């Protein structure tokens, strides 16, 4: 099998940058959300469509990022 329709996009979720990497492998869409810097994975989800996989990944990322505290410097 070869991955198809590989894409990356940068979004802002809960005030933080998120990179959404999505590709199709056979009939399944895979989507991963990471926190850009350093790129740690926040969510890895699958779906029958691109939109389904991406929305699931973004929702999990939103939950995790909402817990991050900014401090005064």
């Amino acid at each position, binding site marked *: *099998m070869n991955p198809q329709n*590989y894409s990356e996009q940068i979004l802002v979720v809960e005030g933080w940058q998120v990179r959404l990497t999505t590709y199709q492998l056979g009939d399944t869409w895979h989507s991963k959300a990471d926190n850009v810097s*350093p790129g740690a994975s926040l969510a890895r989800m699958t779906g029958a469509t691109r939109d389904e996989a991406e929305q699931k990944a973004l929702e999990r990322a939103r939950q995790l990022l909402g817990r991050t505290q900014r401090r005064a410097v």
Partner: protein
Amino acid sequence: MADYAHPEMLVSTQWVADNAADPKVRIVEVDVDTAAYNEGHPPGAIAWAWNTQLCDTLRRDILPRDQFEFLMNAAGISRGSTVIVYGDNNNWFAAWAFWQMKMYGHPDVRIMNGGRKKWLAEGRELSKDASEVTASGGYSASGPDNSLRAFLPQVRAAHDTRASAMVDVRSPQEFTGEILAPPGLPETCQRGGHIPGARSIPWGKACNEDGTFKSFDDLKQLYGGEGIDGSRPVIAYCRIGERSSHTWFVLKYLLGLSNVTNYDGSWTEWGNLVGAPVEKGAAQSVARA
């Protein structure tokens, strides 16, 4: 354009496609997200989990020598094997595996330039099958070679004397103290900020958009512009030592600096120490550091 100091430490995705079936070659995926391998991987590749197989799971340390030897044997790796490590996110944790293999003296370990990201983006073949491995036996490691590693006393001395340059490779927000851990991850230190005198050069700046390493000239400018030019020993650190193993690789093998160590205790050690000096905010200018 100048070539890397050690270009032989990198192989291309095409090289991996052409050589993965060679019994002398072992391809190993090491990801930040250990579930990535199961989605699909280059045919013939095996996987190591950084959080269970590349560390001491009892105390905080690198893999003990006997467990390293066990891992090599289980992976069918002999001292004569050519090991290619690669992973997601610009080879972040692949560099962690590379560093430990060098700590234990494996003669021929290299990194697939661009990592998993480039492999996927190029639409190369993926397999979901677990690769069959015939375990080897009798792997005998050397070391650990602690000349590649910085421990707390060395870092304290470096801070006190400024005889070594320190590179903080975390994000700018971690460096300034605005956040205590990367966004979305658990906080693992009591204080935010950085070791006074450290330069802020986030590790990912060493990579291009496609995950490959930047050119020698670009890397020289990136690090040289912050005073990291080989005139002093260099200590790289991050939060737990993996991002800094990536920078360690870049400085040692791509730029060819002779004295570079990875402080894997990193900020989770320093930022939890009682009485350790901490600086917040942006870095001072190079001249004052």
